[in-house]
């Protein structure tokens, strides 16, 4: 069973004894496991407290817009860097041509 599913099951009080023992063993293994459990418990509790659990259309659109804006910015930066590199390379070629063939 997926670990988060197991935690949710225990928190909801739907887990049987072997499942509860599995989670307890996992919690005893490390501090990081306990931290993960705390975070998932917080998420579960917050989900329970939310009145409107319907998918948030506007929120996803805003996220997509941000990601696309960032992608456009990165593409523009890459294009600028490419042009600059091409110019440097061109100037270097001209310089080498003048040094070797003209002189």
């Amino acid at each position, binding site marked *: 069973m997926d670990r988060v*599913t197991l935690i949710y099951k225990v928190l909801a009080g739907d887990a049987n004894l072997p499942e509860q023992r599995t989670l307890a063993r996992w919690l005893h293994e490390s501090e990081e496991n306990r931290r993960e459990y705390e975070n998932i418990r*917080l*998420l579960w509790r917050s989900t329970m407290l939310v009145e409107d659990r319907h998918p948030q259309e506007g929120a*996803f659109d805003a996220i997509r817009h941000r990601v696309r804006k960032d992608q456009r910015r990165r593409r523009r930066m890459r294009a600028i860097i490419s042009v600059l590199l091409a110019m440097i390379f061109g100037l270097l070629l001209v310089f080498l041509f003048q040094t070797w063939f003209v002189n």
Partner: protein
Amino acid sequence: MDVRVIRDNLQSMSGPLNNHELRKLLLSLPGKAVRILCDQYYPALLKIAFSLTHDHEAAKDIVQETFCHIWKNARRLGAEQERSIQHYLVRVVRNRSISYYHEVNAQSREKARIAGTLQRHERSPESGYLQLEYAQEIRDMIARFPQRERECLTLKLDEELSNPEISARLGVGIKAVERSLTSARKRLRNELEARSKKKT
């Protein structure tokens, strides 16, 4: 494939999303994976962020930035990892909210410090005079000023008259009023400074 169908496949009953499948989806269709995560956890994460920042706009910004981060790093997060995506989401939202809280606190402390400094620097003799609500001590100071300065300053502060009005009331030129006020202010400032030095 429709997002709803994928989500139903990833979800066991009305429980959380299956991490193994979610990671595979992050690798193949990051946009759809983020949409499913957003549908499932956006309101809860918003609640967590708001409980730490106490600011709706900041909480919204933090949660949206977190999902953007997931989308941009889908390839890395899609690789099999020991920790769950839900844990990662909460951790990022918590850390960013706490950072925001500390940042706002630091900014307000800085603003208060600057405001305090400005207030100290901008305090003119008149405002000092008003702040002490015509304390007898200051009245006594002004009473010892030369007559013209004393009259000009009292009319300026007590009756809030303009320079031409003081000039008309006392029957002297505006220039003379300005000179008297400048001199009176300087005298008052010196007296107040001497008084505060004496107190410290």
